[in-house]
């Protein structure tokens, strides 16, 4: 008798605490575009804590990072999501580039190996994403194989996309060029580092994911 009661009780509690499916919001893009800087900014703004470490040497994020249940608010609206920061996607990873940035050979080779695994991981996780923010460096040429492949695949999978042209605090930044490369998407120019234009970014996020 006690057994049946226990079972019923546990079923009751399980139902109460059953998790709702959360929106998975992925940050994707080439290395060093500012994905983790933006993730940190979002976490700092809404949770008061940072998500991961950033570095000038590319491929700093080599493992998928998840921050759960972030709720953002704007003009009376609310949006809750799990934020997924992904390793940068590249077609070529060469340890010698890391040596030029000051790493020792062994460290550089390990970083190259982990970065390669990170690219595979990022791509495998793509199907799990409900919405993707593609973070591009606005000072760089947007017409690259990496950018075109990522965005083309998101389009083919019908995943809603918000395109962010980051680093607008730098003189070389050219939002128009990013916009003309991907005219099918709305492009929001921001500086994740200095927090420029983030209100527009959050508004756009509501439009895409809300």
């Amino acid at each position: 008798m006690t057994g049946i009661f226990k079972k019923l009780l546990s079923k009751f509690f399980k139902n109460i605490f059953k998790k709702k499916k959360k929106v998975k919001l992925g940050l994707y893009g080439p290395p060093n575009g500012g994905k983790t800087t933006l993730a940190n900014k979002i976490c700092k703004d809404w949770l008061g804590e940072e998500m991961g470490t950033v570095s000038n040497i590319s491929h700093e994020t080599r493992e998928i990072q998840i921050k759960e249940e972030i709720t953002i608010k704007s003009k009376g609206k609310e949006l809750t999501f799990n934020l997924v920061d992904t390793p940068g996607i590249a077609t070529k990873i060469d340890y010698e580039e890391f040596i030029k940035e000051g790493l020792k050979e062994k460290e550089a080779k390990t970083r190259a190996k982990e970065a390669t695994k990170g690219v595979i991981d990022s791509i495998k996780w793509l199907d799990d994403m409900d919405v993707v923010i593609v973070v591009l460096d606005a000072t760089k040429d947007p017409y690259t194989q990496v950018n075109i492949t990522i965005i083309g695949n998101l389009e083919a999978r019908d995943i809603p996309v918000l395109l962010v042209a980051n680093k607008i605090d730098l003189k070389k930044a050219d939002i128009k060029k990013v916009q003309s490369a991907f005219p099918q998407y709305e492009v929001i120019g921001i500086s994740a580092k200095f927090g420029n234009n983030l209100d527009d970014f959050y508004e756009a996020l509501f439009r895409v994911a809300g």
Partner: protein
Amino acid sequence: MPHQCVKCGTLYDDGSNEILQGCKCGGKLFFYIKKQSLERKEELIRLTKKEKEQIEEDIYDIIGNQIDKEKTIVLDIETINILKPGKYEIDLVNLFKKQPLIYKLEEGKYMIDIIESFKKMRDAHDEK
């Protein structure tokens, strides 16, 4: 289509016993080489023994530790190309197409469905 042992660089024809049972050097990891990539065999042969061993170790690290090292594995180098330790070329178009990194070519040759292994890794990660 030839297969090349990652460890010693020896080439074997399709269907060779060595691909099923492992190379005579003891290696169980093979590159699957398409005809147009045959020049690659030269590159691999030029690498030092240490470099080849390092590549073999790195491949096991990248494709995950669920893989049984006792079994023969054939790698599709069209998707991830390791030029030498620390130098990688990734074919994004094919990777996005979810083509497996490792193929089963015929009976007896081992296949690892990398997408499934990643899914398992992810599920384990989610449960944590």
